[in-house]
């Protein structure tokens, strides 16, 4: 029996079109210290603005629904899932991506990640590092419980979790 559905198996809502989106206003935000302007679809998630418009591809798409953490960046200093932050909510915001975490890529977490050879495929690691940076910004003595709580929203299919835990502790020691 034929049926009607969209690719995600949901019923197609009659109002799911975008041609009646609100009038476009220019959004101005800071990304890695640079002023950026955006006047496209205001519902576009920050993730695709970073990747497609700014070519900041260190921020990864993994799920699109805030379940994997691969797109984690800092918005106004706190870790946020870029796939969930619409551009219309970011006027005046300050965004930091993995590319802007440290000017020479030597944040203690980045150094610890390399010292412990944490990454396997590496794809999720930008998000992991950005989340861990948020943790260390408020807690320089994280225990296993703190790390598990902070990092549980991130998925690594290669299974680098034990080394991530160790690298966060090593970086914390450097920061103390």
């Amino acid at each position, binding site marked *: 029996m034929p049926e009607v559905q969209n690719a995600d198996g949901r019923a197609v809502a009659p109002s799911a079109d975008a041609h009646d989106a609100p009038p476009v206003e220019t959004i101005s935000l800071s990304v890695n210290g640079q002023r950026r302007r955006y006047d496209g679809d205001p519902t576009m998630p920050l993730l695709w603005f970073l990747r*497609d418009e700014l070519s900041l591809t260190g921020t990864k798409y993994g799920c699109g629904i805030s379940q994997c953490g691969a797109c984690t960046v800092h918005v106004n200093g706190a870790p946020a899932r870029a796939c969930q932050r619409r551009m219309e909510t970011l006027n005046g915001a300050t965004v930091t991506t993995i590319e802007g975490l440290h000017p020479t890529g030597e944040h203690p977490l980045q150094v610890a990640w390399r010292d412990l050879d944490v990454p396997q495929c590496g794809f999720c690691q930008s998000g992991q590092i950005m989340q861990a940076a948020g943790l260390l910004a408020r807690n320089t003595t994280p225990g296993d419980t703190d790390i598990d709580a902070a990092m549980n929203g991130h998925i690594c299919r290669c299974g680098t*979790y034990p080394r991530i835990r160790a690298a966060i502790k090593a970086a914390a020691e450097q920061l103390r």
Partner: protein
Amino acid sequence: MSTPTRLPWLSSSQPAATTTPMADHPTAETETSAPRTHRREVLKLLGTGGLLIAASALGVRRLAAQDTAFDTLIEPWAPHVFVRLGDDGIVTIFCHRSEMGQGIRTTMPMIIADEMEADWAMCRVEQALGDEPKYGSQNTDGSTSIRDFLTKYREAGATVRALLEDAAAKEWGVAAAEVQARNGEVMHTASGRSKRFGALVATARTMPMPATSRVRIKSPGERRWEGKAMRSIDLVPMTTGTAKYGADMTLPGMKVAVISRPPVWGGTVVRVDDSLALKVPGVERVIRIPESPLPGAFLPLGGVAVVATNTWAAIKGRDALKITWSGGPNAAYDSAAYKASLYAAVRTPGKAGRTTGDVPKALASATKRVTAEYYMPHLAHAQMEPVAALAHVANGKAELWAPTQSPMDARKTVAEYLKLDVANVTVHVTLLGGGFGRKSKPDFVCEAAFLSREVGAPVRVQWTREDDLRNSYLHAVAGHRLEAGLDANGTVTSWLHRSAYPAIGATFAPNVTGAEPDELTNGASDIPFDIPNMRIEVCPAVAHTRIGWFRSVNAIHHGFAIGSFVDELAHAAGKDSGDFLLSLIGRDRVVDLSKAGLVAPASNYGATWTDHPLDTARARRVVELAMAKSGWRGASLPRGKGRGIAFHRSFLSYVAMVVEVEVLPDGTVLVPRTTVAVDAGFIANPDRAKAQMEGALIMAMSNVLTSQMTFAEGKALQSNFRDYGVTRMRAAPHVVDVHLVPSEGLPGGIGEPGVPPAGGAIANAIFAATGVRVRELPVGQQLAGWQKR
């Protein structure tokens, strides 16, 4: 239609320019954004034998047509297919295997550089294009990169070393035996002279290649990096966001496509209403991709593509499509009914893959008979990077960038799909954001190529996570039935094992009604147990979705079922599970299983039984090692905690694991500690081997505890990480204690052999902790309230 050039069931194999500097600096050296003319001038200055770091990190800039001329102008000296040496001393090593986390982009170059006596700081790695006639197999699966190529890599390095020594000897007029290469230069100790490799290029390139007799592989004591430690070469890009994966590839004028594919395998588009999709700002085209006839192999499923100026517009446009689908022949696929059919199948004799002795007679005379049935659902790879590929098809040529495990399969399949000459198809391999077998199949590369041709512009196809789970090549769902007979001493005298699972072959050929008996050599019929009467059979199971390779392949469910059953037998015999496992492995013996009951062709992971016989002493030793290092015989753990042990030989390696679990009152399973003992023959890169064991354990945790793909009315019911559960930080081990058995033996696999024993060991640990025997996976909520049972 493209068919795989390998055993249909097991990805065994026969034997984009990425240039990455070894030093820990950001990738400035690898990025060349200079315009073409400038680069030509630079090359003139350097001379034809000079430095070639022409491409950007993943060769994207080579796509531009004008760069083709640039490539042909230079003649870098490549004394070996894997090695280029410039007169500035830069050593470029071509990695022909795909990097997906196993570390081959470090391990392969370090073997060559070690044998070559290169200065590591002068080495660069460039990812080879898909070109198997040139490089040999590039099919990165079956845990074959080192086990099939270690000798070739060593010979490559040693050959170049000998050639440079010959060149220095000629320049100095001394005998070659008097000079020695050392860390990037050749020295003549007697006269105190030395010359850097780069300064020897001009002479070396005029000389004949050294005779085979002159090529000497280093002795173990001479090795500098092989078998020791080497930091991975891609760590800086991977920790700074500059590493480039398939989804990161761009070209000027590129469009992004997101595709709606048939929700049922073999379904077709009946009607499309794209009026709303076309109104989404940024959406430019809606294009029908023809459905490929079943079974489809590596070809696209077909469907409706939305082509847009950016990814978000393409996703929004795809969501706004209204499509009427026909279900096709698999529209009744239902996982609950299918599970029942698998159990029914294994309760009836199947086709034998191995027979020894007389099982019915031995079972009839057994003192005790134990029977158990197991079930494992479909699994999705769910690699963190959903597949994506960039294509530029123009003027009868196709150039592709893809995170592919098999660039030659991608090349051939695209050529056939677009009816192009293979010579006109170029495949650049990007980094893979996880592979696990999904990226062995180039269907997504074909989609990009098709759309680029249709649009007349470069197109990148992006799969969403929903696409990735719903339209994958899933790991086979499997049912198992094991029966054993024990004598009065608790010794196993007979073993009857039947399994049923849809075959990977069904993805490539019509009318396949089940797996072939030879598929049992992937961890069921090749078991090391010393049992006089054995019969291992495979039973019918028809595929209703695309089945494909998944890390460890059939050894995943074989390992879970066998590992669990051995533990069940130990309890039935009233013996310690570790001791019982050792007694099953029995006396030390070296067995050619092709002469011990295996049916032809008696596959051995692509190797010969002469090179890699079943050596039960190796099995025994890793079990003993895991027991000793884990404190197996130490104090027993309190209720709620438990240890489980299992052993499996797969991909020619021997792995034993002792897993310790903690089961919380709500049934959540944590794995605080695991001990792994591995005999994989010679291990080139011990830290990466350890990392693979850590990862294999954690992937097995997902397989056993949380993951499943199920179907109703032919359609996958899971669509994202919300309902496809995988292991996360909280459950992950705090200690993974990996012990590698030192060996100079022929290498076995590393990427896959850790998964099969982990499945059984986790299930056995759960039983030890709770008294609950889980025989149907995933564990899921089955342990909720276990304390009250």
